C-alpha cells in the first residue's frame, strides 16, 4: 500500500488529494443519509417517547421565541428602510409594504429563524449529545435496552420540524410589524393604508411556501446537531468541534436548500 502511494508521480498528487476529498465527502453524505433515515424511522415507528418530544418542543420552540422575535423585528425594520431608499430611486416608495411582506414571508422569515435556530439549537443539541457520547451515556442507554435514535434523535428531529414553521409564522408577523413600525413612525406612512396594502398583496402561498421551507430547515438544524453530536470523538475538544460543525453545516445546508426550494416554488 505504502509503495503504491510512493509510486504516484508528484504531478498527480493534487489529483489524489482531490480524489480523497471527494471520497470523504461522499462518505459523509452517505453517513448523514443513513443517520437521517434511522432518525426518521424512529419518528414513525414505536416505541415513542412523548416526554422527550415535549421537552424538545419547549427547548427548541418556546425558548427560541425571544431570539427569533428580536431578529425578525429588526430585520423587518431595516428591510423597510432599505426598500424605501431603493424604491425612492424609481419613485416607488409606496411599494414598501408589499415588498417587506413578500421579502419577510418568502425568504427572510424562514431563513433568519432557521439561522437563529442553527446557532442556538443545533449547537446545543451537538454539545449535549456529544457530551453524552464522551461520558458513555449513549452506550449506557443502549445497554438499558433503549435505542438512542428513538430516545435522543427522533424527538429532536420531529420537534424542530414542527416548531420552526410556527416560529417562522411568528417571525413573519413580527418582521412585517417591524417594517410597519419604521414606515409609520419614521417615514410618515399612513398606518391603515400600510396594513391594507400588506393584507391585499400577500397571498397564502407566500406564507405557505415560507413555512414549507421552515419545516425543511428545522429538520436540517436538528439533523446536523444530532449527527455531529452523535459522532463526536476525543472528549471536550471533540464536543467543541462537533458544535462548530453542527452550526456551520446547518447554515450551509439552510442556504443551499433555500435556493433549491425557491427554484422549485418559483417554477411550480
Amino acid at each position, binding site marked *: 500500500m505504502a509503495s503504491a502511494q510512493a509510486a504516484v508521480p508528484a504531478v498527480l498528487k493534487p489529483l489524489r488529494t482531490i480524489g480523497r476529498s471527494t471520497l470523504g465527502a461522499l462518505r459523509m453524505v452517505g453517513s448523514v443519509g443513513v443517520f437521517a433515515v434511522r432518525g426518521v424511522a424512529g419518528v414513525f415507528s414505536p416505541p415513542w417517547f412523548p416526554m422527550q418530544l415535549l421537552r424538545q418542543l419547549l427547548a427548541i420552540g418556546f425558548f427560541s421565541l425571544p431570539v427569533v422575535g428580536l431578529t425578525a423585528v429588526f430585520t423587518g425594520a431595516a428591510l423597510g428602510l432599505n426598500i424605501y431608499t431603493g424604491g425612492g430611486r424609481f419613485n416607488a416608495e409606496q411599494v414598501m409594504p408589499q415588498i417587506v411582506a413578500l421579502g419577510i414571508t418568502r425568504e427572510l422569515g424562514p431563513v433568519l429563524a432557521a439561522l437563529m435556530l442553527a446557532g442556538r439549537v443545533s449547537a446545543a443539541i451537538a454539545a449535549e449529545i456529544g457530551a453524552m457520547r464522551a461520558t*458513555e*451515556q449513549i*452506550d*449506557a*442507554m*443502549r*445497554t*438499558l*435496552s*433503549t435505542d438512542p435514535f428513538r430516545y435522543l434523535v427522533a424527538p429532536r428531529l420531529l420537534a424542530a420540524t414542527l416548531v420552526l414553521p410556527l416560529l417562522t409564522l411568528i417571525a413573519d408577523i413580527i418582521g412585517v410589524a417591524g417594517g410597519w413600525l419604521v414606515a409609520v413612525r419614521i417615514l410618515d406612512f399612513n398606518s391603515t393604508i400600510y396594513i391594507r396594502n400588506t393584507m391585499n398583496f400577500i397571498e397564502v402561498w407566500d406564507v405557505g411556501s415560507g413555512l414549507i421551507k421552515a419545516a425543511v430547515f428545522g429538520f436540517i438544524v436538528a439533523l446536523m446537531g444530532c449527527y455531529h453530536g452523535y459522532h463526536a470523538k476525543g472528549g471536550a475538544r471533540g464536543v467543541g468541534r462537533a458544535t462548530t460543525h453542527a452550526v456551520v453545516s446547518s447554515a450551509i445546508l439552510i442556504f443551499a436548500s433555500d435556493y433549491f426550494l425557491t427554484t422549485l416554488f418559483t417554477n411550480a
Partner: protein
Amino acid sequence: MTDPIKPEWAKLEWRGVRKRFDGAPVLDGLDLSVAAGRSLVIIGGSGQGKSVTIKVAMGLLNLDAGQVLIDGRSLTAMNGRARRELFSRIGVLFQGAALFDSLSVWENVAFRLINADGVPRKAAKERAIEALGRVRLAASVADSYPSELSGGMQKRVGLARAVVANPEIIFFDEPTTGLDPITASAINELIVEQVRGLGCTAVSITHDLASARAIGDEIAMLHAGKIIWRGTPAELDRTDNPYVRQFVDGRADGPMASLV
C-alpha cells in the same frame, strides 16, 4: 478433565475474537469464558483491550472476527429484537457511572423499567428507591440530580441502575477508579453482595488489584489482545508468570513494555 480456561457451563464466552482499530490489533484471537454464577475479573495494562473485551460482549462494538456467545448463542447472529431481549438480561456499571445528567437519580435507576419495560412511573420509582436502598443510599437522594452527588454516590447509583432489573450478567468497568480506598472498599463489598444476592455472572475489568481480589472468584490477565494467565485470587500472589508478576509487583522493568 476440566480445562481451567474454558469451564463446561459457560454463561459467556469469547471465541477467537479479533478487533482492530485503525489497523492495529487490540484483541488478537481472544478466547475466554465465564461459568454461570461466577465472577471473573480481567486485569491488564492500559491499552491492552480490557474495555474492548467487555464492549464487544455488550454488543457496543462489532467484531472483526470470532464470536461472543451468551448461553451458547452467538451475539453476532442475533437480530435487533433478540439483542434487545439480551440487553434486558444484562446490567452494566460504567467507569464514570454514565448517569444521565438531565434525569434525577431515581429516573436514572428506573430508566430501563420506564423506557424499555413499560413499568408505570410510580411503580418504577418504588423499585428504584428499593434498589437505591440495596446499595445503601437513602430514599432522600432519589430526587437529586447526578451532579449533586459525590463520585462514590454516583457509582452506587450506577450500581443500583445495573441491578434494578435483576440481570443475569453484570459488567463492571473499572468500578473503583477515581475513588478513595475506603469508598472503593465499600463499592467492592456492595458489588460482591449484589452479585451473590442475584446469583448472576459478573465480568469486571480493573487495574485495582485490591478490587480484583475482593470481587473476583477468578482473575484473568489480558496482554496483547490475549488472555495470558488465569487463576484464583490466591494463585495471583503465587504465580511465577513473569507478566503477571511484573503487573502485580508494579515494576517498570520486565517482559511487558512500559505501560506509561
